[in-house]
């Protein structure tokens, strides 16, 4: 079994770039990646109007680089906005598998986090039973400021990633 090595170690071994310069490169790469998260346009529930207000003109989400996009192969984030029913849970999984790495999942609202007001329903599913979640944003519906704050937490998470992308080695 090969061990996983980071890109940093490989480049260090091959090109003998000193660590401080590589840290700067990594910082710039992290800055570039965190300001271009493209979530997929996937609103399953009642938080959807709030999501649209966030991408509207007043609480503009696009100034952070977040552009909701329709095609799943070109996105790198699923924002699960709203309640996930049983019929939909399979499709969330398909979409997650179809996205290219690196990929993130944000659970927006109280419903995908913990079923929300429908906690005793036979037809709802928590989204972390189906896909691994990076950021949870509570609220019913969360205020636009809360959604932007959640996306900024995701940005911090991306910036701090040491191992970029798929496994190498």
């Amino acid at each position, binding site marked *: 079994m090969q061990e996983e090595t980071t890109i940093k170690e490989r480049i260090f071994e091959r090109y003998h770039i000193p660590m401080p310069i590589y840290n700067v490169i990594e910082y710039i790469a992290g800055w570039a990646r965190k300001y271009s998260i493209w979530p997929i346009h996937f609103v399953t529930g009642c938080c959807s109007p709030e999501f*649209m207000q966030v991408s509207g003109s007043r609480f503009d989400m696009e100034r952070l680089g977040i552009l909701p996009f*329709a095609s799943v192969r070109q996105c790198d984030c699923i924002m699960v906005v709203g309640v996930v029913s049983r019929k939909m849970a399979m499709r969330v999984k398909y979409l997650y598998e179809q996205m290219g790495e690196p990929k993130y999942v944000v659970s927006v609202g109280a419903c995908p986090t913990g079923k929300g*007001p429908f906690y005793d329903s036979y037809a709802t599913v928590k989204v972390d039973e189906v896909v691994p979640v990076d950021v949870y944003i509570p609220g019913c*519906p969360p205020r636009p400021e809360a959604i932007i704050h959640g996306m900024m937490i995701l940005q911090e998470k991306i910036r701090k990633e040491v191992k970029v992308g798929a496994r190498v080695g």
Partner: protein
Amino acid sequence: MSEPEIKPDIMRISWGPQHPMSGQTRILLDVDGEIVHRLIADLGFTHRGIEKILENRTFMKGIIPIERMVMVDTANIGLGYVLAIEEALGVEVPERANWIRSMICEMARINSHLYAFGLQAEATGYFPAVFLWTTVDREVLLDLFERLTGARWSYNFFLPGGVNADLPEGFQDKVIEGIQYLRGRFAQYWDAMVENAIFEMRCEGVAVLTREDALRLGATGPVLRGSGVDMDVRRDEPYAAYGDLNFKVITETAGDSMARLKVRFHEIGQSLDMIEQVANEVPGGPVRTRAPLFARAKPGEALSRVETARGELGIHMFTDGGMNPYRVKINSPTLRNMYVFERLAELDEVLIADVPVVINSIDPWYLDSDR
């Protein structure tokens, strides 16, 4: 999957559950070239089982899940449920509360029609910016809701016996300011959008629904009124303060997508007039008669009908003497309109490029049809 069979020379396209329009549903198009031969709607992707969970909630607590049925139009749905509770418990509502209820319902109706209008413009592919303009206009209304109730979308403001709180100081002036701003915007929308040659080419003559078909297939709301049928619950069985407000029921006779859009447009104008009338003439008095928090209803039933932005919503509540309702049957407007949508491909010629425009002229909200 559980779908009908395809004929051999037809291609089946799945407009999958993830699509750039609003809501989650799967629509199967059977196409032959550009012409759509059949539309099959596969609903249920947002089914939450609201009817079952309402049996586990007391009457007051049930207002919370039911308002989440349609998020852009929560006031009308919440009002339908509260009217059913009041009929079951026998609670009277003071007059000022009725007027405030009507005002909030009309503001929610404008909110929803703006959303529908923005989506239909975006569906043509040519005017996606219009959707962003409408988000700014909705912010005006959402600020008014927040000033009054504290929440933007789902405020749970209607309670059995009245409304939760009285209008704050200066609220009526803010409302009139907002209405004057919105009136200016709608004049601009009419000139820029509705009387635009390209928009007319995309929407006129598309998916015509005749009067007989609209009645036979059970259409409701602007879909029914766009085909010339003059039915509106606010005038036929007046609830809240609609018996005292002056408004006209808007109908158009063409029955195509443009007619349905024009019905919504003129309904926004009527709603603005109604809100102004309430802001100027609302009577004084209490806003709530106290109903007990955990009330028990006598065994019986209550059927309430309200006119939401999408059509007629019916809440049929059966009570058995306990603190929870025994059964709540929700007659959803979008479920009725989705059946009409399925039949439109057989009634009139629909091309693939017309399908987004047709869907958004029906204005479905799938959380409402799936409950």
